[in-house]
């Protein structure tokens, strides 16, 4: 049974790119593109790993992350945070919110793949 990755991202082209890369590597990829009900979706789908974009319509990725960490079921869930803002403040906020890893767009495909493997294996 291959592991499931939930991609929470609103930009269709980026969803397609990540989906292509991960599914070629043998992951099952689920997609959600809205911030408002993201936490509920994570709870329902119970993925092995979440790739979360910071700038989502409706709700900030940081808030979603904090909620997930506060829940017992998802407190230890590996979460890779993606942001299009490269400032150090964003990295600090990501760490403070409890991201397992933080990655700045644009990323290289190999990087993403490696990060996902690391997080899911560990």
């Amino acid at each position, binding site marked *: 049974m291959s592991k499931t990755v939930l991609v929470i991202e609103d930009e269709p082209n980026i969803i397609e790119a990540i989906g292509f890369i991960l599914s070629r590597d043998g992951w099952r990829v689920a997609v959600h593109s809205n911030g408002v009900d993201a936490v509920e979706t994570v709870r329902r789908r119970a993925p092995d790993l979440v790739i979360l974009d910071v700038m989502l319509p409706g709700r900030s990725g940081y808030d979603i992350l904090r909620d997930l960490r506060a829940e017992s079921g998802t407190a230890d869930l590996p979460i890779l945070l993606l942001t299009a803002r490269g400032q150090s403040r964003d990295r600090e906020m990501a760490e403070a919110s409890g991201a397992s890893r933080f990655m700045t*767009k644009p990323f290289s495909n190999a990087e993403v793949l490696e990060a996902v493997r690391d997080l899911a294996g560990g």
Partner: protein
Amino acid sequence: MASLNVLIAVCLSYVAVLFTVAFMAERVAMRGQAHWLRSPLVYTLSLSIYCTAWTFYGAVGYAARSGLEYLTIYIGPSLVMIGWLWLVRKMVRIGRSQRITSIADLISSRYGKSNALGVCVTLLAVIGTTPYIALQLQSVVESFSIFAAEPGFRPRPEENVSTALWVAAGLAFFTVLFGTRNLDVNERHHGVVMAIAVEAVVKLIALLAVGIFVVWGVGGGLAATMERIDASSLGYWHTDGSRWGGLIFLSAAAFLCLPRMFQVLVVENDMEAHLRTASWAFPAYLMLMSLFVVPIAVVGLDLMPAGSNPDLFVLTVPLSQGRDGLAMLSFLGGFSSATSMVIVASIALSTMVSNHIVMPIWLRLTGDGASISGDVRHVVMLARRVSIVGVVLLGYVYYRISGGGTALAAIGLISFSGVAQFLPVLVGGILWRGATRIGAFAGLGVGAVMWFWCLFLPSFGADVILSAGVLAEGPFGVSWLRPHGLFGLDGVDPLVHGVFWSMLFNAGAFFVVSIFTFPSPMERLQGAQFVNVFNHSRAPQGWQGGRAQAEDLMIMAQRILGPSDAQALFHDEARRQGLAGYLPDPTADFLQRLERELAGSVGAATAHAMVGQIVGGTGVSVQELMAVADESAQMMEYSSQLEAKSEELTRTARQLREVNEKLTQISVQKDAFLSQISHELRTPMTSVRAFSEILRDTDGLTPEERGRYASIIHDEAIRLTRLLDDLLDLSVLENGQVSLNFRRGTLEEALSHAVSAGRQGDRLAIRRDRGDELVEIETDMDRLSQVFINLIANAQKYCDAEAPVLRIVVRRRDGTVSVDFIDNGSGVEQDMQGLIFEKFSRVGHHKAGGAGLGLAICREIMARLGGTITYLPGQGGAAFRVTLPDRSAMAAQ
């Protein structure tokens, strides 16, 4: 040996010099080159009329009789000039701001422009000054007789009398000539003041010359003279504390209250700043005047035969040594002292008499006064001239009656104590708002009566007016009413006794009665202006007049000020009111000003009465005064001013807060934009990178996949380009480097182009009225279309209605065309409405992928096209209004 003829020749030529000086000064002043005439030095020297013949001759006699006591006469004024300068400054400020003409005017003006009070002060001043003028005549006559008596020649009494008459006539002539040349005191008596300054120098030089001669020529040097002084009884300080204190007080009071001192100190003052110089220079002058008094007295007592009059040592000592030239100089010094005093005193008194006695009587006799024909100026001038002659004549008569026997200093002190009665009313009126007219009457009346009884009447000597019996036993044998032992106060120096009782009762009555009486509105008004003279720059309003009275006022003013001055005044006021011609509206302000101008000629009380006759009676105006000038009204005005101030502050604070809020928000927006622009650039970049890596690294992609991924890369590259274009476009627009391509067209053209370019798909319905859109415009059609495209695209992106509809409404109004874009969505939240045109702002996050530059670009474009774009609130959806000038307006430019 100087013959009488030489003396008369010297005298006449000296007078001729004075005439020339006065005449030249008048000429210079008239040509407006009076700058040097108005120096603080001239002012200080003019104050020296304090030093009269009494000081010049009498101080030596005084020292010969009473030792150092003569110094008290100098200490008093010096203390006032040094320590009480603030009071003098206040008097001068009041005098200038209220155009005060005399001390009687000041007191009358302060206590509600009461003429009765002015009359009282005038009468008392005349009574107090007459002996003093007599004294001056006497000193001139005696000094004349000394010369005439040399050698071995006894003057006959008739000759003395005729000399006195000639001197009096000469002085009256001089004073009339230079003292009544112009009516308005604000034009000041430059000639007289200059002549007095010259006389001040002459008397100082004369006294110093005699002093130097006595010390080094007769006394054998400084050390020898000092020994002589030590040997004589004069050197001892046999001071009587109460007499010294009393005399210092008396001379200080007289310095402030003497009509002639008031004349030079306040009325003739050109600049308040001169007081600063005078505050040290005048005491210095007094010190020089007193320097050689004791040596002359001591040497005189040694040199002259026993029984000779010490009052004339200044003359007789040089004469006895055969120094005729020096004696002549000394004579001129004494002559100067006497003449300058008489001139200024008669000017001051004549002003008082004509303004407070003659003019009111004349006004009453002529019925409705100012409005009948006849030149008032002529009357005022005549009144002054007659008054001057009268005052000098009165002095002469007093001289004839008193026989000129009494010692000079004694008369001087009686005079001093008479005018000192003004002090409580004067100082109280300046410093205490509670002082009332009735109080002033009470104080002055009681003080005057006591002075009359205790000092003035006894001064004639026993059995002249008061019998020796009355002096010794009291009237009708009532011993506690004895002039020199009032209320059983015996064993005190008669002068101190009289000054003590009169001042005590004067001040007491003034104070107590003031407390128990209420000031009239006019008094309250004047009191406030006098006491707070440094705070009030202009007077509160007093009169209300109708338009019809302006002409009457003009007629009256012409009679008093003269036609040209009056016309200038009225013309100036009319211009200030924004009217052409010579008849200003008689506003309260103008009437106040006019009254002040008139007061300079005829005194405050008379001016008030004259204006009152025309403007409609004092009764009404007092009621109005009450309303305007009442303290509560003033306070209300103050508080309303404060309120207005604080409102203004609140408004400014609110504006600042708004600006600050906007700045803060913009700063937040800018910060957000840095993130935003980063996000906007990185997002397409991410897709480009990811798919290009996929294309590069992935084997076995289907041709469809390849094609699809390549077109994603292509689209994202275009998105990046568009973003960069927008940024550049905005930057160019903001820097004003954009080149516009104006051409003619219709709105319909631009809108149709925009709709076809901006609308994607059919979701957004667009409602237009093409008929309205057929408006000709001349503008950069491409740029205008860009704005329209942006607005249509925004509606497409942001309108959140189920079935989005955009209405485009065109209106023409006042040379401008407005195009409204109104959609049926939820619109822009109010707190965002002010920000949406700022760069990088976006409504909501992320929804439509724009960079938040569109509206900022629109705003810049519209500014370049001479139009505007604004958000239109309250239209039920998002609504934007674009306005631009229509073609005809453009063509007109």
